[in-house]
């Protein structure tokens, strides 16, 4: 049934059989954590606790503990919110969009990318709630009757769209992720040796038995969820961008924002996936599953999205200049900003997001783990600066020169940000220990098409063969049935 082009290199190395896949995926769950895991975990917990302390301080003393002021009334909080939401886009992109495009390389990274999405959205949600100043009144955002104290929520406001978009995105992502986990939990349950593990994973697996009818429904549900998650992913960051784009602040009021934000989100999300899987594949001994080829493919997606973002920057820059409007000449992408007191933030954005990713045009760089790892962190920093620039450097020169000012965060704001990073890694490390890191049931469906055990040697030309044919992309595109 499965067909694959002969020029494709196998996605799964190490001559894996079905049973070997089971063993490899179950090993981290059944084994003991090593000292590196504990070291990073303890560090993350400390950061998380520090963040909780700073959040408590903010709630207790009010957001006067932050360095926001009258002119710059959004700062690190909303920057971090948009940054985390952006990171939270890669998971559903990989599992939904790439599922519709039948990209098989997604199968070994979709589980961890979805987990990353969920934890990132949890981190993101903290910031707007804290920024309310009185987070105990956060229920005002829900459509509750007027008797509860506020008026009905305003459905014409992008801030309320955000509430609906993010809660839908979060809950649907959780469901999508968990449904996929059920058969994998069942696999761990059925091979559990200890009683505690048996009870735990019986509970987690919801009594899954793998009957044909269940699988039929499972496949249909996965496909339909992928179908409805695809527009959902694009809607969420479009709506986040509307928080800015529907505002009357120059620099924000820009129609390019929705597609530009979505591209940026995929860009930063891919960078974070790369950061995590490059470490994860080594620590969990999954290098034959998440191969250099996977890393290269993700780098290609990142390069494409980085280019889209670069074009959007150029368009913003050009339009600000071309409009001839003196106000527009002070937006975040303008010479005035590049030369101004926030010039360092401007150049950080350009260097991290536009200049350095250009090295990915070289195949050697795309396949180099060290370069990719460092670059993925650089891009994450760059994407943080993008949001910082949009927010702070569009606000700091407002319409009355006497209110022009500068902003740098207080230790509380930095602490909360560090805390969310700690929370993210705490959850991700727990996930890597207790949950199957790879969607093994789904992976097994394509083992015969992508595993090197099932490729017959004569069908698989050596890489030198098609390099001499003028590059791998132009060799014969014949699809050949796998030998079985």
């Amino acid at each position, binding site marked *: 049934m499965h067909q694959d082009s002969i020029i494709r290199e196998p996605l799964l190395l190490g001559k894996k059989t079905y049973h070997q896949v089971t063993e490899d995926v179950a090993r981290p769950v059944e084994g003991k954590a090593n000292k590196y895991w504990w070291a990073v975990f303890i560090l993350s917990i400390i950061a998380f606790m520090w963040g909780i302390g700073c959040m408590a301080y903010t709630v207790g003393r009010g957001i006067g503990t932050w360095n926001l002021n009258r002119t710059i009334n959004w700062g690190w909080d909303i920057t971090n919110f948009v940054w985390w939401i952006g990171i939270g886009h890669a998971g559903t992109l990989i599992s939904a969009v790439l599922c519709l495009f039948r990209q098989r390389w997604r199968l070994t990274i979709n589980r961890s990318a979805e987990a990353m999405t969920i934890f990132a959205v949890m981190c993101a949600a903290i910031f707007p709630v804290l920024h309310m100043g009185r987070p105990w009144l956060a229920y005002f955002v829900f459509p509750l009757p007027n008797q509860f104290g506020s008026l009905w929520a305003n459905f014409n406001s992008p801030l309320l769209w955000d509430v609906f978009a993010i809660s839908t995105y979060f809950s649907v992502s959780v469901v999508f992720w968990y449904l996929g986990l059920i058969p994998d939990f069942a696999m761990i349950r059925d*091979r559990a040796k200890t009683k505690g593990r048996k009870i735990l994973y019986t509970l987690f697996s919801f009594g899954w038995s793998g009957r044909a009818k269940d699988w039929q429904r499972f496949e249909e549900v996965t496909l339909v969820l992928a179908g409805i998650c695809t527009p959902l992913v694009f809607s969420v960051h479009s709506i986040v961008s509307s928080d800015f784009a529907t505002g009357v602040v120059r620099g924000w009021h820009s129609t390019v924002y929705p597609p530009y934000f979505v591209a940026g989100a995929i860009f930063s999300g891919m960078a974070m996936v790369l950061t995590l899987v490059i470490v994860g594949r080594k620590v969990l001994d999954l290098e034959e599953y998440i191969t250099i080829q996977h890393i290269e493919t993700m780098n290609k997606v990142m390069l494409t999205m980085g280019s889209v973002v670069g074009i959007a920057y150029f368009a913003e820059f050009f339009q600000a200049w071309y409009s001839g409007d003196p106000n527009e000449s002070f937006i975040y992408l303008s010479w005035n900003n590049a030369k101004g007191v926030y010039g360092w933030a401007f150049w950080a954005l350009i260097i991290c997001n536009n200049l350095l990713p250009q090295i990915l045009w070289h195949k050697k760089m795309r396949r180099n783990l060290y370069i990719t790892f460092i670059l993925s962190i650089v891009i994450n920093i760059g994407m943080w600066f993008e949001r910082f620039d949009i927010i702070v450097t569009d606000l700091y020169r407002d319409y009355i020169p006497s209110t022009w000012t500068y902003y740098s965060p207080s230790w509380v704001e930095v602490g909360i940000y560090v805390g969310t990073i700690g929370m993210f890694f705490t959850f991700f490390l727990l996930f890597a220990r207790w949950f199957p890191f790879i969607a093994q049931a789904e992976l097994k469906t394509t083992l015969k098409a992508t595993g090197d055990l099932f490729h017959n040697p004569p069908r698989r030309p050596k890489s030198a063969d098609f390099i001499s044919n003028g590059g791998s992309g132009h060799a014969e595109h014949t699809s050949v049935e796998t030998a079985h």
Partner: protein
Amino acid sequence: MSKVFVHALYDDDDKLKDGARKVRELGYSIKEVFSPFPVHGIDKIMGLNRTRISICCFIYGVTGFSLALWMISYMLVYDWPIDIGGKPNFTIYHNLPSWIPVLFESTVFCAAHGMAITFLLRSWLFPGVSPKNPDPRTTDDHFLMVTTAYNDQDITALVGAANATGAVEITKVESHDSHH
């Protein structure tokens, strides 16, 4: 004689499909198949109906959309039209464009969760349910086909079919309705 279930265990999905085809050709029905991953095409061989869960999903989506439209227009137009910046919410028509995001999200919310809940209920999956697969290897790398025999002739035919298609283990289980 009472019913006997013939459990044919395979170690390959293609052999399982061969076995299932053979059983169907002989005129028997397949009671159940347990597999570690979805074996494409096995539902057609078994003669399972196409699942209607995507139709449910559509209905949930339409419901979500309608509920959201009703909710927003009730709150913003009928119950308490807020005058924001001199733009009062007196009509649905004028407000509709800015409701699209929430209408879309509500549609997706109801469609996705409704479908997931329907799936879990129809397949009877939730915490506390005990698994029904007779052999733990069927979540690892084995595939189990369960057929029903009513007499010795059936047993010979079904075991023969399993043997001929490369089943690695064939067991006969007396009927005590351990699976439904």
